[in-house]
């Protein structure tokens, strides 16, 4: 009963904040609402007994990406003016497309018989995660490092100020 209530509350917060992100006129306020949405998602992860993902959600999305977004907004002065227009001529069409996609996805979620395995959470989940990461998934693990290196080099090349 109580978990369902908390789940309902966090979904309402997440969806409400996400709606506010889209509808808000001030883009910086949108960024702060986005953070609220991230908090809601993190609490849902906790309810799913995936605390590692929940903490990573807060650490990466709120601690780094949200700050990156806010910095990006503050870098571009044009975005800060009050009279930004949020819609263009094709907003009706795209709304139609988005609704269609939502309906299709919803239909898929409800109609497919998902193979759900009921497993208990292991005694020390982080240790199991680490062992899996370095045995079964070792190639993706190393590729992630190369990917991050590429991102780092790219960020430096793009962001560097020309002398």
């Amino acid at each position, binding site marked *: 009963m109580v978990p369902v209530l908390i789940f309902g509350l966090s979904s309402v917060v997440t969806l409400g904040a996400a709606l506010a992100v889209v509808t808000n006129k001030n883009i910086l306020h949108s960024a702060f609402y986005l953070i609220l949405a991230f908090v809601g998602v993190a609490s849902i992860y906790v309810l799913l007994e995936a605390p590692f993902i929940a903490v990573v959600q807060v650490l990466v999305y709120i*601690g*780094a990406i949200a*700050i990156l977004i806010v910095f990006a907004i503050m*870098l571009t002065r044009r975005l800060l003016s009050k009279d930004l227009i949020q819609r263009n001529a094709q907003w009706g069409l795209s709304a139609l497309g988005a609704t269609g996609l939502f309906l299709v996805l919803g239909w898929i979620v409800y109609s497919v018989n998902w193979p759900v395995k009921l497993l208990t959470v292991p005694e020390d989940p982080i*240790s199991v995660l680490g062992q899996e990461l370095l*045995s079964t998934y070792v190639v993706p*693990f190393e590729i992630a*490092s190369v990917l991050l290196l590429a991102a780092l080099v790219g*960020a430096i090349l793009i*962001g560097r100020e020309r002398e």
Partner: protein
Amino acid sequence: MLTNWVYIGVFLIVAVVVPLVAVLIPVFIAPKKPSTRKEEIYECGIETKGNIRIQFKSQYYIYALIFLIFDIETIFLFPWAVALGNLPLFAVIEGVIFIVILFAGLVYAMRKGVLAWS
């Protein structure tokens, strides 16, 4: 397992409520005498001119980007560090290779001089 998280949930709520109460108390007991002079922006007595929302240096953005990349790296390293006792020796070396690859990125950033304050 979830009882620990119930405690943390309760604690987070308490950690919001107590500072909120502290901030709200002066609303009821402190005087309120607003005036235009008082509510001016504080710039040591000089009137504020021009656009207040100034533009940032792009260097801040690079710091945030580099931070993001190292943040994600450490998230991979925490499970590695926890599992270290149960791993074979070559798995430790795999983790070390992971760190060294990103360390090369840091050296590159230092060589390009983006981390120096200009």
